[in-house]
């Protein structure tokens, strides 16, 4: 995990976030489904770990206090998502 490059780590985050989003929408219309809920919580945990790992190496993913930043303020660092090329 530690050796994962930036793109691989981002891809992993995108995969887990997609799973979480799908389960989220499913739970919106099936709030009593225990299996989906457990899978959602498992995914949320995994995602939090991956994002912490990503942010330590590559800077904040979220603004407005949801991600810490090293000095100097890393939020302004490029590239922005529309500038990435894999």
């Amino acid at each position, binding site marked *: 995990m530690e050796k994962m490059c930036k793109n691989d780590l981002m891809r992993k985050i*995108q995969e887990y976030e997609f799973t979480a989003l799908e389960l989220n929408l499913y739970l*919106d*219309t099936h709030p009593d489904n225990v299996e989906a809920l457990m899978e959602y919580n498992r995914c949320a945990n995994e995602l939090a770990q991956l994002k912490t790992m990503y942010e330590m190496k590559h800077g904040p993913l979220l603004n407005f206090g949801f991600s810490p930043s090293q000095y100097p303020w890393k939020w302004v660092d490029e590239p*922005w998502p529309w500038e990435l090329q*894999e």
Partner: protein
Amino acid sequence: MWIYEKKLQYPVNIKCKDVRFAKYLITQFGGPDGELGAAMRYLSQRYTMPTGKSKALLTDIGTEELAHVEMISTMVYMLLKDTTARELEEAGLGSQYTQHGRAIYPQDANGIPWTAAYIQSTADPITDLHEDLAAEQKARTTYEHLLNLTDDPGLKDALRFLREREVVHYQRFGEALMDVYEHQNSKKYF
């Protein structure tokens, strides 16, 4: 409250510029069945939904649509990068270049600016959810038309992802509609 996440929902891989396709694709940003309209439609309608489920679903799908706005904008931005004014003009984007350069502007494939007239919000949850079901199908059809107009594997991959999201949203909106019908029927008994 919304928080921005500095990433795309799904990776976009575009290897070369393509002015012709950018002109078509922009409609999924600011056209009648585009992602901007989808986001504004759901995020406007959610306030007058009757159940927690329907409020949650419109909030969440409306938010996902904003991520799709970003994907489409990114694709158009990449397709137009490093193009010359002449190349834009030859692909029929001379007027576009005059007014907007290579900027991302919410419009359809003919250059018509986005308008709130593309969406409805009626305070009738049955009516609004039927509009949402239709909107997802119209967006799916548009993605299929776009898929017929390119052979680029990177573009096709992202477009297929977005097309599939319309199918999933349609499914969830159908379930929300059933929930609202049940809610309305339950109010008839004391």
